[in-house]
């Protein structure tokens, strides 16, 4: 039996060596990654040794701020303690408080000891803690100091009043709304519905989670939808670039058929019988599917696809403020993230009015509207106005940058005219604002489920001659864009125009 004992000893030695290699893996090779996993409180405890900076809107309203339990007593009338207290910390306890409740739950995000961080609280974590680019929380926590270190305050481009108009409009619905300053790219509002109160996450998680997992998704950037007729803004750009005569009249009978290269495709309008004789402007104003589908087929798929690329389809939107887990999803025409080299006739005609496999985020739709408002220049979207250091010094200040040039000024002007007509006599005429010239494009996108109402879209900007705001609103299952999304967009525009006066 000696031989089998010796063999067993050898086998067990190998097994114990593997165990120790496992320890090496977790304790040395993979330990940094473990520190960043959700559910690991170690990093969040170390962060408690730095007094976290606040987050403010463009007018100085507090969106998120850290308070001591005593300050919380004055603020909310009861003593609030952190859900979990770091063991053996000598620093004052801090409670993260969001005075605006559910208004900014997705974009600013939540901050929880138990459920981690999301939104800007997560992506701007290092900035809020005042850590340098190469400084880790571990190294900062190691520096023993009597006074807690202080992080940076962050002032956002967001505007609480416009955000409130968006969130109130979306209340009880499901969808998203984004507002942008077309000239600078500053994001003025970014809302996703359903929403929740981040202050109640730790205490009321079950109830919030019961709404569904979608409650934690920022649909403005992390969900894509078929754009429906709002895609005609992009198609219009393609048609203008292909040299279409905007005044040439097309007889819209409500149905048309295109035959080319042995392929054949039908297209129908929303309105049975069609809109009669339409030119480029009327086609936009009434949202004629037949006009855009047949003209796109004539212009050809390469012309159409080039336009989508100019508008940023298939590209990562450089919204670095929400980097990492919150990257905006790319818009695309195939499998939601890519632009193919060619489309067949059917896909081209359906894509021209935003069906087929076209998928886009609400943020991207707002940027398309903003580019038309801004003479064809698409600005890099921005969320951070400035960063203020612990000694009130400005650490960072936002500078507008052009991201893409999808249209030349002439093309932008033509599309703007069509959008003005839509409000004057077309699909959005019920939403006209007295005294303010609003340009708009409605959309209703089928979701593929015939039993569900279509998703309602509304893309608009105002005032047309000197735009201060461009918005995109999506209401899931809302039906028509003018009926569901339009009123929300209108209220957001009113809030912005009132403020700019």
């Amino acid at each position: 039996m000696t031989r089998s004992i010796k063999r067993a000893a050898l086998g067990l030695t190998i097994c114990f060596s593997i165990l120790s290699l496992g320890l090496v893996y977790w304790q040395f090779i993979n330990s940094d990654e473990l520190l960043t996993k959700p559910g690991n409180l170690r990093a969040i405890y170390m962060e408690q040794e730095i007094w976290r900076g606040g987050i403010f809107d463009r007018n100085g309203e507090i969106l998120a701020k850290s308070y001591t339990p005593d300050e919380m007593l004055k603020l909310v009338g009861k003593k609030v303690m952190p859900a979990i207290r770091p063991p053996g910390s000598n620093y004052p306890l801090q409670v993260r408080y969001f005075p605006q409740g559910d208004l900014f739950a997705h974009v600013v995000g939540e901050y929880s000891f138990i459920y981690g961080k999301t939104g800007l609280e997560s992506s701007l974590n290092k900035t809020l803690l005042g850590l340098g680019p190469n400084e880790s929380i571990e190294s900062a926590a190691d520096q023993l100091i009597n006074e807690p270190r202080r992080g940076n305050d962050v002032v956002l481009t967001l505007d609480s009043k416009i955000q409130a108009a968006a969130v109130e409009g979306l209340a009880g619905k499901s969808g998203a709304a984004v507002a942008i300053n077309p000239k600078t790219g500053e994001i003025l509002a970014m809302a996703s519905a359903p929403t929740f109160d981040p202050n109640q996450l730790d205490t009321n998680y079950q109830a919030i989670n019961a709404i569904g997992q979608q409650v934690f998704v920022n649909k403005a950037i992390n969900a894509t939808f078929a754009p429906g007729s709002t895609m005609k803004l992009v198609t219009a750009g393609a048609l203008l670039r292909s040299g279409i005569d905007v005044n040439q009249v097309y007889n819209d009978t409500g149905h048309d058929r295109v035959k080319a290269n042995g392929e054949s495709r039908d297209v129908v309008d929303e309105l049975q019988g069609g809109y009669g004789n339409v030119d480029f402007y009327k086609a936009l104003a009434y949202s004629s599917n037949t006009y855009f589908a047949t003209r796109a087929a004539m212009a050809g798929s390469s012309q159409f696809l080039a336009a989508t690329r100019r508008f940023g389809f298939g590209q990562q939107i450089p919204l670095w403020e929400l980097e990492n887990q919150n990257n905006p999803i790319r818009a695309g025409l195939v499998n939601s993230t890519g632009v193919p080299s060619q489309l067949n006739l059917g896909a081209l005609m359906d894509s021209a009015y935003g069906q087929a496999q076209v998928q886009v985020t609400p943020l991207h739709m707002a940027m398309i509207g903003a580019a038309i408002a801004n003479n064809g220049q698409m600005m890099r979207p921005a969320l951070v106005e400035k960063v203020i250091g612990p000694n009130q010094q400005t650490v960072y200040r936002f500078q507008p940058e052009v991201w893409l040039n999808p249209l030349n000024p002439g093309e932008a002007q033509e599309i703007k005219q069509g959008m003005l007509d839509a409000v004057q006599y077309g699909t959005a005429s019920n939403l006209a604002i007295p005294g303010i010239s609003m340009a708009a494009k409605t959309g209703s996108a089928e979701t593929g489920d015939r039993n569900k109402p279509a998703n309602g879209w509304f893309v608009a900007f105002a005032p047309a001659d000197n735009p201060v705001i461009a918005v995109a609103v999506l209401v899931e299952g809302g039906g028509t864009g003018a009926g569901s999304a339009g009123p929300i967009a209108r209220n957001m525009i009113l809030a912005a125009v009132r403020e700019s006066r």
Partner: protein
Amino acid sequence: MFKRPVATLTLFLFPIALLWLGLGLLYTSGKQVDNFIWQAAIFSVVLLAYYALSVLLGYKGDRFLFPAVMCLTAIGLVVIARIDPELAKRQFLWVTCGIGVAALCMWGIKDYRRLARYQYVWALLVLILLAVTLIFGATRGGATSWLGVGSLSFEPEEFVKIAMIIFLAIYLKNNRELLTIGTVQVGRFSVPEPRVFGPLALLVGVSLLLLAAQKSLGTALVFYGVALFMVYLATEKGSYLLLGIPVFLGTGFLGYKLFHHVQTRVEIWLNPWATVYAQGSQIAQSLFAIGSGGLFGLGLGHGLGATRIPASETDFIFAVIAEEFGFIGAMAILLLFIVIIYRCFVIALKANDEFGTLLAGGLGFLFALEALIIVAGVTKLLPLTGIPLPWVSYGGSSFLVHMFLLGCLSNISHISESYGTASQLRVGKGITG
């Protein structure tokens, strides 16, 4: 009398020093240790008394095994005191009783060969204990493995280990030749006839079924592994091992298909991060704790795992050690186990008879397998099957049983050193029964 009594005394001072040092560290990290002063003093005295008894009664056996086990015990006590002082008070009591049990087993049974007399009594004991648990047992942590007697509750499956291994050792000693050679010809292979193989297969099979019914998967795995190893040890035929692996994989696959909780275990193992706030929390928190340990650890009382990992004082105590004592501390635990297993195998090689060799070898493998399964579980090398880490984890049943087994090992060692090893006997007096 120990061969070198003074050197052996220093070995006994190691665990005592570890315990007092640990309590000192606890005190400096701001924990209340006043309650433990007396307990630690009693531990020290009892340990020295065990040493004195060994010297007085003329113990001749292995002198490394017992101090190594006591080092693990002392570390366990300190860590349990850090996690939950109330539990530590009880564990101190179990440890004192356990040392008594080891002494009783060592000196009470006089000669381990007396255990070999009642083969089927042990087999019957295995089945009765398991069946009684299944019928009257209470469910804790998903497994029906607890039996309440008055205000005490204990885990019979721990006690089954004693009966099982002793039965296997007797049975294999008696049937070694028949199992090795085989009397029935199947193609090119000669296999033992069912009459020989039957009782073994039946007992192991029924035990595993009973354990599976209690959902004690970890213990079932330990039993299966030890039985397989002991058959290999007795026959020296690798074909038994080779046969055992597909049987194990097949059973595992069947269990995976049939039982929902097995599937859940595997899912958690593959991706604990997906359910980090639900089922995956235990293993995820364990890895977080291990990961933050680094080389030297965060220091006793400075880790989070002790409070964040569910069952940190029992199945997951290794993760707490890895966090607070780091890689060095975790490796120290593994090395102590290697020393213990090595000494078990040495005792097996030197044993007076085949029963002793099989028993000591089987026990060494039992300790190895238990440590491997739970440490691999908490480090995500294998799916987690919760079993205590021998001598370190909190728990009376496990500790007492392992101390009894330690007593058996000491006895085997003592007898072989007193009357000569099997090989010496063979040379001197021919083969003894």
